[in-house]
Structure formats: C-alpha cells, structure tokens
C-alpha cells in the first residue's frame, strides 16, 4: 500500500535508472562517471563537470532528516491527515537530498537530525516506492 492515496511517480527518461533500482530494492543515485559527483534529481549532464557520462551508483540508503512537516490540513477531500513529509539528506554527499515519507513513526517523535534508512514497497507492478524508517541501532554496535 502506498503511504498516501495519491498518484504515483511515472518514470521519465532521466529517472528510469532510479526506479529500476527501486524495483531491485536498491537505492541508486545518478553519479557522474567522470567526476563521481552524485546528482538528484537526475540530469542528462553532470552539473559539476558537464560530462554526459551518467551512471547509477548504489548508495547505503542511510541519511538524516534535514527538514520535515506534519500536514494537518487536507488538500483534497478524503486525504488522510495528519501525514508527514521529510527531506532526507543522504550520507554520501552533502546536500544530496530526497523528499519522502517516514513510515511507522509517530509524528511527535520526528526531529531534524534523526537517522533514517530507506525501505521499499512494491506498491504496483510498474513501480516500487521508496520510503524511510528510523534507523535502529544495530545490536553489534554499528549503525
């Protein structure tokens, strides 16, 4: 089930690789094959070095909440409120962010700086959505 009852993303030429990764339950971010810089949303050209050589690089899926809001007023009748929107900064690169939703997370516990990990949900045959969950500390002591 998607987190919200609203239309899902449609892949477009630059984003196809991203959604293919999601189908494999991998978070892949566009990376430049010449300079290595990550870029999201994906671009035909590397904004850092203007190379056309674009690749997809699997990332850890870990990041922190950089901004969040709890939507309390429904935009469309029937939208279930409250729900959260988060901006997550991925640990691989400063400023590399995705918008998403936190699942299984009471609104009052959400805070900026909270570590999160990506999770995937096969919502439709044609698209697997990504969401985030609070990162639990590992029993082995690693996070």
């Amino acid at each position, binding site marked *: 089930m998607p987190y*919200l009852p609203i*239309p899902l993303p449609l892949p477009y030429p630059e984003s196809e690789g991203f959604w293919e990764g999601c189908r494999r339950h991998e978070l892949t971010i566009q990376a430049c094959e010449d300079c290595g810089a990550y870029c999201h949303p994906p671009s035909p050209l590397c904004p850092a070095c203007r190379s056309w050589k674009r690749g997809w690089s699997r990332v850890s899926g870990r990041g922190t909440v950089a901004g969040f*809001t709890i939507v*309390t007023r429904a935009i469309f009748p029937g939208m279930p409120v409250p729900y959260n929107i988060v901006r997550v900064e991925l640990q691989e690169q400063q400023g590399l962010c995705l*918008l998403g*939703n936190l699942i299984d997370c009471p609104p009052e516990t959400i805070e900026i700086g909270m570590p999160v990990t990506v999770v995937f949900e096969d919502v439709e045959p044609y698209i697997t959505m990504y969401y985030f969950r609070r990162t639990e500390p590992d029993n082995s002591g690693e996070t």
Partner: protein
Amino acid sequence: MPNIKDKTCIVGIGWTKFGSMKRPLPESQYTLACRAIMAAIDDAGLRPRDIDGIMRFSFDSNDPIRIADSLGLNLRFFGKTMYGGGGGCACVAQAAAAVNAGLATHVVAFRALSQSQEVAFGHFASLFAEKFSERKGVPGPIGWAIPFGLMSPAQGAALTASRHFHLYGTTSDHLANIALAERRHANRNPDAFFYDRPMTRDDYMNSPMISTPLHLYDCCQESDGACAVIVTSTERAKDLKQQPVYIMAAAQAGMWYPNHALILDKIPEIVQDETWQLAEALYGMSGITPSDVDVAEIYDHFTIHVLCALESFGFCKRGEGGPFTEGGRLEWPDGDLPLNTSGGHLSEAYIHGLNLIVDGVRQLRGTAPAQVRDAEIVLCASGNAVPTSGIILRR
C-alpha cells in the same frame, strides 16, 4: 556591464478592488486586467494607444491579443516572466530594459488573477491533475514531490520553516511578528481585504495549523484582483502627470540548487541563495546598502520566506531573522524597516507581488495608506525560494 540606474521610471499605477475565495469579485479575470491597466494609463496621464509594450507572468492567462483589441494597442514589445510569483519585479525589469533599448516607449507590467474563478494556487497539484489522470501517474520531476504528499506551496515552506526553527531557534512567535505587522498595516488600508479585521497574537496562534509549523495566518491569501504599473524613460516621465518614481535597479536571480520551482522547499543555511544573489545585483546596480532602505516590500507568500529574505538581503545575519522581527522593527510608523505597508499578500491581497510594487510606488509619491515619513528608497522583492527578481525604487 552596462547599468541603467535611474534611466527609467514608474509613471502610472492602477489596481482593482480585491476579493477572495469567500468574497469573490463578480467580474471576470480579464475584465479585472483591463480595469487595472486602464487605471494605470489614466493615472499616468497617458492614452491607451501610447502603450506599446506589455510584460506578463507565465501564470497569467489574460490574452495579450484580447487586451490589444480591447484597448486598441499596437504592441512592439511583449513577453512573459517565468516561475510564478518570482516574476513580478522581472516584468518591471524587462519593461525597463525595453524602454532603455528604445524597443518600446510605455510598457505595462500587470497581473490579474481570479483565484475564485480559476485555480487556487494553494492547490497547485490541481494544476497538474489533468496530467495525472491522462497518464495515470505523476509525470516528470514533480513526481519527486507530489507522490510523497508535497502538493502545495505551504507544505514546502513548512519544510523550510522546520529547518530554520531547528538550526536557529526561530519560533512561531517570530513568524507571528511578521503576520501581525502586516495585519496592522492592512487595518489602515481601505482596499485591503482584512481592513476591518484586526488580529491578535492569540488569533494567530489559534489559527488552524496548515502544515507544521505553519499556521493559516502564515500563508498568503487566495485573491481576486488586478494591479498594473507603467514604465517609461526618465525623460518622458518628466512630461507626465505624476511625480516620477525612479527605478534605481532591476534584477533577476536564478536558482542553482535542485530546483523545485513550485515547491518552495528552500534550504535556509545556503548563504549565497537566489535572494542573496539578487541582493548583490540590486545593491551593485543602485549603489545603496541595506541601511538606505526606508520601506521593504518583500514577497510574503509565507512568513518564513519573508524572514529568510530579510537575512538574504542583509538586513540581519543569516539565522538572525527571528530576533530581527522583534521590538516592532517591521511596523509602521516607528519601526526601522516598515514591511509591506499596505498589508502585503497576507492581509491586503495576493496579486503575485504587483500589489507590493504599487504600495512601494505610493510610498515614494507620499500617497500610501500607511505613509512612511520621508520615504526615499523602497526595495521590492518578488517571490523567493523560486527563481526570483527585485527592484529598488526611489523618489
């Protein structure tokens, strides 16, 4: 680079009554456009056929061909500015560019909107709704936002506010200071939608939460109305009816971080953001500094973005916008930097920045409803957190 400081002037302003979703105006959006333009032409002491240029917004759906027909105009300069509310001052900037280059003589910049009849921007997702149902999904880069529930500008602004609060200790009281100042200004302005409705801090705090931490009164209205201004050369301005208002500077600034142009999720700690770049260009062209500004007309789609803009314009340091709003600093008549003295988008009407420019011109002519004594220099800034624009005007 050339500098056209003081080479062009605003010589006419016009506006209609303002309505809202709850009290809509009966006239069509197009009629409102014609009314505002004709009022500006009249104010300038011009005739319709003197107008040979029009600058519009990309969100404006008033057909320039119809306007040319209704008003009997032959136009030789016309275009649009992009990115919604970021484009208002850019209309004036491009009008000034046209006049300066000898490509037109009198250029109208206007905005007419009827959110009660058309699309309310609070529901920008509905602008895309057709595309969703056609294609059974959200196409293109807006798909990075809408499926996650980011469907209105308020939600994006809320993301920014959450981070500003966290990084700098900004609070809702600080945002309330902005809303309260503007409401007090609107209470002096008979044209303002909230003219006869004062607001207390409790009213603000008790107003419904839209998307944390933004309340209803942190958000601009959804209005019906129209405003227009006319730009011409300084030489020509001296022959016209009103005291000219000189355009000292007019600039645009693009956004370089991933551009969610409608989403307004601005990253507050980026120092050289679009508004900072705009400020640099405006101060450079005009030769003024922040302390020279007598009145600030800062686009107030959301209080948090006004606060960020005050920082980016150098009125205070990055992160200190909250404390800057304290002590009545933004309030007419005694504040150091009266803000949006007609009530702004929050309390006058939301005419996509044009009503702020109109108020700025009135301040410099000495005819504003909350007239700042000896106002010499006004800064007008269009929407931030989108590719933006601004102008600096003087007496």
